[in-house]
């Protein structure tokens, strides 16, 4: 019998704390972590963040589809090791695969593979402040339009100001976008959390709720089976 593996997904806006939560959960339940951001460079076209009206269709158009992520998840769920495209690192399958995916179940190529979707619905002002801290408050600054890191103090301050402005005017961080995406994700999410409080507490809560969910589907299945036997 093939051992059942589970894909647990953390969705939410940029800055909501997805990445940290995925890492924490993976650490606590000895799971495999998989990050959307390590695949997003494969997107042929960048999502049109300022075109909020068409977001629903956009999410399922080719420039949002990350078939490589779906393929890799399928392999992991089948018990195979994959090579993560950005870092080239080997990722081994464990019983629980924790996936960071901002779109939850909303992308049709991958949504059906997800067992449990958590929307981390952190207040947006906190998300924005955290993103700004990440971009400008860390040791390194990523040169605009690249993945090249330079020491924060060596970066051109005028460029930094431009990047800062793009976080405020919707180009790099778009509240309209996150509100719309979260509204879609919320409808098909299994758990919604507010992302406030300590990461330990949040991770513990998610794990507890997931285990409860897992038990309930197993019981349902057993009940269903015993019924069919009658």
């Amino acid at each position, binding site marked *: 019998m093939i051992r059942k593996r589970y894909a647990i997904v953390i969705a939410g806006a940029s800055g909501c704390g997805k990445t940290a939560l995925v890492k924490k959960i993976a650490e606590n339940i000895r799971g495999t972590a998989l990050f959307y951001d390590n695949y997003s460079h494969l997107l042929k076209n960048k999502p049109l963040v300022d075109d909020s009206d068409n977001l629903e269709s956009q999410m399922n158009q080719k420039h949002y589809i990350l078939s490589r992520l779906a393929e890799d998840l399928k392999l992991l769920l089948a018990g195979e090791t994959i090579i993560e495209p950005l870092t080239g690192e080997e990722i081994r399958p464990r019983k629980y695969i924790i996936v960071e995916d901002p779109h939850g179940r909303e992308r049709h190529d991958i949504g059906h593979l997800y067992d449990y979707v958590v929307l981390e619905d952190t207040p947006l002002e906190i998300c924005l402040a955290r993103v700004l801290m990440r971009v400008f408050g860390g040791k390194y600054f990523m040169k605009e339009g690249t993945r090249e890191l330079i020491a924060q103090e060596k970066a051109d301050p005028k460029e930094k100001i431009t990047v800062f402005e793009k976080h*405020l005017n919707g180009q790099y961080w778009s509240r309209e976008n996150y509100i719309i995406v979260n509204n879609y994700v919320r409808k098909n999410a299994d758990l919604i959390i507010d992302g406030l409080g300590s990461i330990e507490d949040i991770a513990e809560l998610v794990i507890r709720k997931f285990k409860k969910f897992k038990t309930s589907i197993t019981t349902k299945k057993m009940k269903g089976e015993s019924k069919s036997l009658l």
Partner: protein
Amino acid sequence: MGDPNNVVEMKSIVVVLTGNPASGKSTLAEHLSEELGGLAVLKFDDYFDSLQGWPNDMRTWVNEGAEIDEWKNFRLTRDIVSLINGTSILNPTTKKNINPSPIILVEDPSGRERSEMVELIDYLIFIEIPNEISLIRSLTRWLNSEKVKKDGKRVKKRDEDPEELLKNMMEFVGLYLESYRDMYVIVCDKVKKKADLIIDGLKEPKVLVQEVLQFLKEQNIESLEGEK
């Protein structure tokens, strides 16, 4: 009724505008003033030098229950009383003269939460905007703010010293995450509960002005009669 000691006086009405940072208090005050033929407008921020009891440690202040009444600004209250009594005052920051008017507008984020103000306030209007819009607007304003150089020339801070500007803004973002965000949320929550009118700050200023004028009209304020 009919009491000879009851001298009928045109008492000024005090309207306090409140809401999150960058919710549009000043813009609304400007428009209202224009609409009503020039009003006295006082801003809490212009009285920052005379503000007492502002928490040194915002986190502790929030954790200990956010007691807004600890903020005292006697100069502001004194000036409001002066205006009510028909005496002109001087804006402590701009040093400009402010003359009495039938309606006195006060921009004060603390609403009816400070005991020294409660008696003076006739109407409290709360301008509501989402927290992230407040943060975005505040930072955008800061990003495009100017400073006056020694030779009197006005320059944009982002052109003059982008490094310094970014440093200051990021210092604030750090504080915002640490405590200021929670402070704004708690203060607005308390203040909003005692508001006489809540308006949606995402609407156009001219729509908001009409909503406020309509509200004031419904209050049958004597001093407003014959304005139009």
